[in-house]
């Protein structure tokens, strides 16, 4: 797409975060007044284990330009090992998305509660990466 169009394009991103690590990191980014782009909407889950890959599919098919998921670092899960299982499911769905060149629109991160700075920076880089990708081709399609 042309440079001009890219500049106008404001990506819509939806993210899933676990309550204990990344949601807390987002809160910390807030208390530290770390500004980041307004493109992402967060859906709070209790644990990354609650991320059903169907949500990712649904978001992308609904036209989300980007989808992200973020939870506690592996091994630091509030629910002991929830994120180990989550990681396998995420890897599977990413592999499927990769087939259709959609994997770039789905990012996963591990951001712990103390990484407020990382959260804000992640939101910045994520927004830029998705902006670079351009709009999701599913946007506006009748499916």
């Amino acid at each position, binding site marked *: 797409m042309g440079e001009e169009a890219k500049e106008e394009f404001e990506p819509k991103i939806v993210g899933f975060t676990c309550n204990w690590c990344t949601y807390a990191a987002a809160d910390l980014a807030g208390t530290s007044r770390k500004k980041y782009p307004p493109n992402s909407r967060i859906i709070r889950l209790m644990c990354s284990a609650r991320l059903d*890959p*169907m949500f990712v*599919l*649904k978001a992308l*098919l*609904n*036209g989300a330009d980007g989808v992200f998921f973020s939870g506690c670092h*592996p*091994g630091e899960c509030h629910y002991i*090992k929830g994120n*180990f*299982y989550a*990681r*396998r*499911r*995420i*890897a*599977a*769905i*990413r*592999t*499927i998305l*990769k*087939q*259709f*060149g*959609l*994997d770039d629109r789905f*990012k*996963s991160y591990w951001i712990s509660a103390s990484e407020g700075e990382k959260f804000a920076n992640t939101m910045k880089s994520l927004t830029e990466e998705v902006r670079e990708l351009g709009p999701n*081709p*599913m946007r*506006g399609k*009748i*499916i």
Partner: protein
Amino acid sequence: MKGAELKHGDLEGLLKGLLEKGVVDCLILPHRTGKSVSYMLVKDADKIESSASALFAPSFSVNAANLVKGWTIKEKVGIVAKSCEIRAAVELIKLKQLDNESVLLITTDCSGAYTNQVYTEHYAEIGDLVDSAKIKELEGKGITIRESCSICENRLADVGDIIIARGAGDDLVVAGLTEKGEGALTALELSLEDKDLERAAEKEKIAAEAKAKLASLPELNSLDALEEFLQDCIVCKNCRDMCPVCYCKECFFDQPLGDPIGGDLLNLAELRGAIGLPTGQLFYHLTRVYHVSTTCVGCGACEDACPKDIPLTRFYPVITQKVQEIFKYEPGKDVDEPLPFTAYEEEELEECLR
């Protein structure tokens, strides 16, 4: 592994023996009806006569595992089928839709199969037995094996409790892969000796051909391509119903959230301005491919079942293989291997997460 040499003519006796010696309580076997081949459930050993000739018939009707899905009674059933079917049965055991103690899995060598329509239609040319040379010859005449078979790397029997391997001409080897399988063969009073049925060179050759074939298939590598591929789908869900490893009692896509009607449908239309009907072709297939991503054995039953002739082999097995690769998992290989989604390593998959 321990095994014994047989001739094709010995098969009938072998199968009858399983019932007569009480190794199993019943058998599921290929069964010839006219030119066609499907399955039958046998309690009476005398009914086996017609089966022996159909044992290696290159025809695929349904996946035998789909026939025993949910077999939760104690009576022991022996299943004689091709590798993809037995592999599906193993996955069902892991998913507790079959009880390992109630089955005896007997895998036969396969050279590739025709859809049962093609098989019936060309029975005269195909016959009871084929080998790779014959398949090539028939291909010249426009009679081709199923696409899923052509990309299958696991045609030679190497899973289950017992394998029946074809040798040159009339030769066969029957061998036990598991304790259960060896026990069954011992009960049949076969004299067992060490057999090497690795057949590595042969497997390599098949794999190479399969890979070459896979590479020649058009790739679904974009969302646009996928949309086009599925444009005729009517979401009849036959692919799901015939899938041996789709095991839900009530599919998500038969429930309101997966298959919205009425107000829910209208809600979606309001949110997006308009929605296509039938809804969720993409969502349905993408979800389904994820659901079977670790368990799909690539049998191609989905494609056979599609009333709209969508070549689903190019979607399901092709994609699921890639998922299986990242977990280094081969479905149906071993009942004791955990399903990938129920296991984890503390450090893994970094390259799959970005």
